């Protein structure tokens, strides 16, 4: 039986949980875009160009891109979103005092495609169990 959560943490847990759910959806969405971009970059040798001479979105070899390289942008944005996602995961783990394994499992949500969408509805249930156990 893990140690009980502190009653004072419950409002904070709810706030972090809200941020976590949003970040799970946004990070998960960008992870799918990242997969798409990886297929283009390493499968077909092209990046996605935004607002270049060949239309709003165009596929171009990386060296020939003049406007915004959307592929690299996706890579960077996903990286920082994942940092936010991990931060929420860490705070939830600290306050709900669930196992370290679960912390690592939730962390996988930013790396394994679609997993974070599952966590988006599963994690609130885990949190509720812990909060109810405390009350």
């Amino acid at each position, binding site marked *: 039986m893990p140690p009980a959560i502190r009653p004072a943490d419950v409002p904070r847990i709810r706030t972090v949980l809200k941020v976590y759910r949003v970040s799970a959806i946004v990070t998960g969405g960008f992870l799918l875009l990242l997969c798409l971009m990886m297929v283009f970059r390493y499968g077909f040798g092209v990046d996605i160009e935004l607002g270049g001479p060949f239309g709003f979105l165009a596929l171009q070899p990386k060296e020939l891109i003049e406007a915004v390289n959307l592929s690299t942008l996706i890579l*960077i944005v996903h*990286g920082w979103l994942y*940092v936010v996602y991990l931060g929420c995961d860490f705070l939830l783990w600290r306050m709900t005092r669930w196992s370290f394994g679960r912390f690592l499992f939730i962390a996988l949500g930013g790396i394994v495609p679609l997993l974070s969408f599952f966590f988006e509805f599963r994690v609130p249930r885990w949190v509720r169990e812990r909060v109810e156990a405390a009350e």
Partner: protein
Amino acid sequence: MASGFWAVARRPRWIAALLLCLGIAAGFAALGQWQLERSVDNAQVAEAPDTEAAVPLSSIADPQTAVTPAQLGRTVTVEPGELVAGDFVVVTDRNNGGTEQGAVLVGHLVTADGITLAVALGWAPDAETALAAAGTPSWAGPVTGRYLPSEPPSSSDFEAGRRSAISVAELINIWPDATPAYGGYLNLESTWPGLEPIFSPEPDREVSLNVLNVFYAIEWVIFAGFAIYLWYRLVRDVVEREAEEAAVE
């Protein structure tokens, strides 16, 4: 009796965990260093040669090849053979470092080795003046200038019957006997009679840090610190749990 922090931390299990965390932190630090190296590597495409010290063109470039980044903008000397008399070409819509559009006179130089090299001889405010300056040079000894890449010709110019790019490929088609030829052209350094010397600045060598890689390097250092903190937190958890259990008993 609950154990203190160090009593728990000294247990073999948590020493092993600490070693693991230190290993991970070292790995993260190495990744950070790699990012830092990349941030400098990306900035320098090649070992930048001194573009201002004159070297013989034949020692750095081969005919029939495009200009490489290492050759671009270098000051070179060429042993002249002759400028082909009928092959002068005027290229228009050229500014000379200012805002005024003028014309550049381009000559067909055949080097002492028999290789064609396009040479931009000088600039004039209008095409007539530029063309009037065509003639036989009084060159004694090697000719010095900056070696620049061929410019892409534009199709709109072609349709309008103009020529505004110094395109070696295009010039070779105009000149009756022009092979083999160097892939770039020469901006003549000395003053050609009747023309202004061509504005020929030292090429920009951008040496800027890649900020993105620097940020990633910082991120890895933070992650490395976090790995150590995680170990500390996990040990604290055990200490607190044992304290709570002791209190219950």
